[in-house]
């Protein structure tokens, strides 16, 4: 009980927020409602005029043409007015819905730029996309259209009732009493077909999973000659799905004939009563034809309203998902300090950090990197290497302790100032859709053609770029490049900007060792006198570093140059030697 009350109040809350959101369109909304009312009332009045016109056509030589034409002209004018009203209403609705969606998306994308990475890392991309795209659509469609539909439905019902009562009270009451019948029938059927739909979606889910597995890994399927077996497995699930869908579709499609049957019964009842009443003078023939038309029409808005209400609930659910994204607390406000002429003196003092409060990760971490030093981080997965980089770039804020660059705490400088003094290449390569050139100049949009080519040559990406169909202007899609080529492109980006400090997080993991070596040479030249941080899996990548930090469980367990660490004979040495085991003996 209390739960339902709670959800009710929270959906009220959401509804209020939505109203505030579409506040700038309130005049459009009011106009839409007025126009809906106008067009509905006119549409309802037209059958009455037709009834009147028919009443003027009594029998041979008893047709009152002038009166009949009077009604017919009225019909034409009203129909035209109603048509115009509903057209304008449609236009207004379109504008309202599309603009609202646009507003939501604009706001969402701006908000995404300032959300803390902790939020974005925790939520799946697909989930956020579906909020920005699908939920926004459902919200605007469901809420705004639903709202006007609901309104015009109510107006239709009320108008129909008024007009019907004006024609004949008894028949109107009859219709009012009988119509709920078709409701119950529809409800009964849908509650029974629900079970079958569930079976259908279960079968469908199982089949989709099988398809994803077998088609997604089709090469393995073929390599192991598993085609026949997978076909047989598919066939079994397919048969199940067929049964389930057939039942679901059949039972749910019963609603339509069943409600129509009830409506036909009502129709017959109206016809009978009307026909019996006419001789008594309580109704005219034209009046009966109007009542029959209304009997059909009266039902429709009820069905519409019930579907609109589900849609509205759905829209509210979407709205609350969107608002929870838009209301998510943004990153802490930015400082205004700047960094100029960065030397690359990075100091990390007593830094502690945890993603989850009760899971310690980095505890009391200390490190001093003098300008121009190459610091390498090694260690098993999950030891905190990538977290360390998150902290350096201030993607996450430290829980305690300080990180400073050239003696300035990074909390005192703006994020842009901090980040633009680092060049960062991550293992997880990111290529935006667009041309090769657009991808390279991300960090330096004003770069000249020569600079771009120069950077590409230094990062050894020029060889493959040159061979692409349109060179630098080739449009890249998700799969146009191999993983290694993507990494080369990401390195080119950094080569182009030449930032004072460098972060390489498994930046060369998909590149062969020979090319990697050449890239490192290029970096060495570029990075002379600049501090760099390198995370790598391959030990050959890091052995030239000035200082190697061996991390385990969030803290540094060994520290020194390659030679020193080998001499020491600790964890690093075991790690390093394991690559020389001779297997031929």
């Amino acid at each position, binding site marked *: 009980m209390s739960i339902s009350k709670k959800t009710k109040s929270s959906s009220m809350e959401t509804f209020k927020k939505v109203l505030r959101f579409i506040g700038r369109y309130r005049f459009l909304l009011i106009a839409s409602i007025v126009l809906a009312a106008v067009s509905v009332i006119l549409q309802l009045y037209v059958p009455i005029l*037709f009834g009147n*016109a028919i009443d003027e*056509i009594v*029998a*041979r030589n008893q*047709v009152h043409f002038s009166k*009949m034409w009077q009604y*017919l002209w009225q019909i034409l004018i009203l*129909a035209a007015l109603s048509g115009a009203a509903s057209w304008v209403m*449609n236009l207004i609705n*379109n*504008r309202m819905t*599309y603009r609202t969606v*646009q507003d939501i998306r*604009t706001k969402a994308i701006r908000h995404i*730029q300032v959300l803390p*990475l902790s939020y974005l890392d925790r939520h799946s991309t697909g989930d956020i*996309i579906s909020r920005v795209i699908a939920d926004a659509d459902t919200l605007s469609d469901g809420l705004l259209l639903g709202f006007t539909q609901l309104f015009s439905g109510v107006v239709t019902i009320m108008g129909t009732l008024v007009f019907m009562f004006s024609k004949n009270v008894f028949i109107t009451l009859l219709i009012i009493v009988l119509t709920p019948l078709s409701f119950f029938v529809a409800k009964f059927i849908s509650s029974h077909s629900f079970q079958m739909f569930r079976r259908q979606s279960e079968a469908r889910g199982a089949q*989709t999973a099988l*398809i994803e*597995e077998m*088609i*997604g890994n*089709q090469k393995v399927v073929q*390599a*192991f*000659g598993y*085609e026949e077996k997978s*076909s047989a497995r*598919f066939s079994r699930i*397919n048969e199940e799905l067929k049964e389930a*869908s*057939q039942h679901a*579709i059949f039972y749910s499609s019963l609603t339509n*004939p*069943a409600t*129509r049957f009830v409506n036909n*019964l009502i129709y*017959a009842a109206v*016809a*009978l009563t009307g*026909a019996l009443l*006419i*001789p008594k003078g309580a109704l005219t*023939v034209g009046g009966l*034809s109007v009542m029959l038309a209304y009997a059909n029409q009266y039902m429709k808005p009820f069905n519409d309203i019930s579907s609109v209400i589900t849609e509205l609930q759905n829209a509210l659910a979407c709205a609350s998902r969107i608002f929870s994204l838009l209301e998510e607390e943004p990153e802490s406000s930015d400082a205004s300090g700047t960094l100029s002429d960065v030397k690359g003196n990075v100091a990390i003092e007593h830094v502690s950090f945890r993603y989850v409060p009760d899971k310690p990760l980095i505890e009391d971490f200390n490190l001093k990197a003098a300008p121009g030093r190459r610091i390498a981080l090694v260690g098993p997965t999950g030891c905190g290497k990538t977290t360390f980089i998150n902290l350096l*770039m201030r993607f996450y804020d430290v829980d305690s302790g300080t990180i400073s660059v050239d003696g300035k705490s990074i909390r005192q400088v703006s994020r*842009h100032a901090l980040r633009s003094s680092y060049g960062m290449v*991550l293992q997880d390569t990111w290529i*935006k*859709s667009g041309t090769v050139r657009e991808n390279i100049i*991300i960090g330096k949009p004003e770069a000249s053609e020569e600079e771009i080519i120069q950077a590409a040559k230094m990062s050894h990406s020029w060889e493959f770029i040159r061979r692409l169909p349109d060179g630098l202007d080739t449009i890249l899609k998700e799969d146009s490049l191999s993983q290694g080529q993507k990494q080369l492109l990401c390195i080119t980006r950094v080569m182009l900007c030449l930032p004072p400090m460098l972060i390489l997080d498994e930046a060369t993991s998909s590149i*062969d060792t*020979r*090319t990697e070596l*050449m890239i490192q040479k290029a970096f060495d030249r570029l990075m002379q006198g600049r501090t760099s941080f390198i995370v790598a899996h391959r030990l050959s990548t890091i052995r030239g570093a000035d200082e190697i930090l061996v991390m385990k469980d969030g803290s540094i367990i060994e520290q020194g140059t390659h030679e020193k660490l080998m001499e020491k004979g600790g964890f690093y040495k075991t*790690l390093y030697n*394991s*690559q020389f085991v001779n*297997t031929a003996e």
Partner: protein
Amino acid sequence: MRRLAVYLKNYKKESILAPFFKFLEVVFDLLVPVVIARMIDVGIAGNNREVIIQNFFILLLMAAAGLTVSITAQFFAAKASTGFAAELRQAVFDHVQSFSFSQLDRLGTDTLITRLTDDINQVQNGLNMGLRLLLRSPFIVLGSMVMAFTVNVRCALIFVVAIPVLFLAVFLIMYLSIPLFRNVQGKLDKVTGLTRENLTGVRVIRAFCREQESVAEFDLHNRELTKLNEFVGKLSALLNPLTYVLINLATVILISRAGIQVHLGNMQQGEVVALYNYMAQMIIELIKLASLIITLNKSAACAGRVADILKITPAMDYPEETAAHTPSACAVAFEHVTFSYPDTGAPSLSDISFSVEKGQTVGIIGGTGSGKTTLVNLIARFYDATEGQVLLDGQNIRNYTQDVLREKIGVVPQKAALFKGTIRENMKWGREDATDEEIWAALSMAQAREIVEKKEGQLDFHLTQNGKNLSGGQRQRLTIARALVKNPEILILDDSASALDFATDAALRKALHALRGNVTTFLVSQRSASIRHAEQILVLDDGLLVGKGTHDQLVDSCETYREIFFSQFPEERTKYTENHKAESFPASKREGNP
């Protein structure tokens, strides 16, 4: 579309009966105004209660009959559409399984999955709706016209004019707006894509301080989408008001004509009501038809996409039987093999020749994109050589049946793919009749015994889809074991130890080495330590075979190999340069010139 009609063959009866029963329903619907007219003209005008009550019961009977035939129609439509969809799905699934690797590459799995799921569902819905409703509306529209003729020919002529005009209006609007809807979809895809980019690239965007530009680009496309949406909206918003006005215009003309006819004594008042009702019925149906056509249009597009898949003929053909041949000492040989992927310019492998004796271990090394994977894919005939030939056991690889080929060769691909089910089920992919002992033996060899032993239920441990409940290294070892269960003559490991730490990698190589004698092994790797002890090493550089031989030979003779080796073992370079001081040149010179 005709290509898909085949799958309706088994449901011919149902797909004829469904519209037929729907037609009967229409007949009952159309008779209603006639009955009402009789109520008015005979019952009321003649003040005959008996006729009125009689006609009331006729209405009830017709309602009941209408219910029966319409349920029957629904039943047949559901049966035909689901049955059709099931057969179509199976056919597409089987067809995809016959595609060659280059076809799979070209189409992409995402597309194939969408076609098999969403697209076919849409087609099923379309067929179901089509069978039930597509014929209903024309039946009613034409039926109304026919009935109007039986009432009064002169008035009915108005229907003859009104119907085509209405149809024209509806179709014109749809004809203009449907292609625009497709553009809207395209724009929406772009906006979705940009949203995804902003999320997946958030670190890069922030690192390069590109937030403003990202937002600006998004805004541009967002506004374009809105503009297009509003434009299309203007057009489709016209549909209902326009038909409404037209139909009222037609009705007004109808009533005025009817007035004249009644005045002349050719018609009665009740018949005017009947004509009016027919006109009203028509409006409702025309509007329903319009929305139905939009739905059907969508399914037709989906049907077209499904048909496109079925249209593709599998590119690989295999002989019925493996040609007889005398066994050779040579397990695999390449003779001047050149290979290009379809639709690409430069060949991925050029003029490759080598031969491998049975039982040898062959290492394949080379830079990113040098053609290592392509080479081993040709050994398994996942692709066919563009020029030259690949020999297996002395016989052209194209002369083997698919089954024999798959049996001979065990492949461990780069991407470690496992399937939902128990570990045992996954292992049996290699060989259906493998015993538990054989599976355990393979697991031990692949250094995976410990992993499985630690799992609850061991071989009965359930893997989730793609084996996601294992780590990357664990998955790799299981895929290696799966290939070993097969007990193949030729074993190919395509960089399949990349997620293993050095110690495990070494143990694995040691175990594989013990297989020597019966199994020819190909090891693809970027780590020179992994292939250093192979009997034969093939060095690839940009699609060319730049060196073959043992490690020692290659260090002496092959520049590329030396570079790769030294990049991973710098102290070897020092040793090497010291040994070759007399003839050598400074290492630094080479570095600048790749």
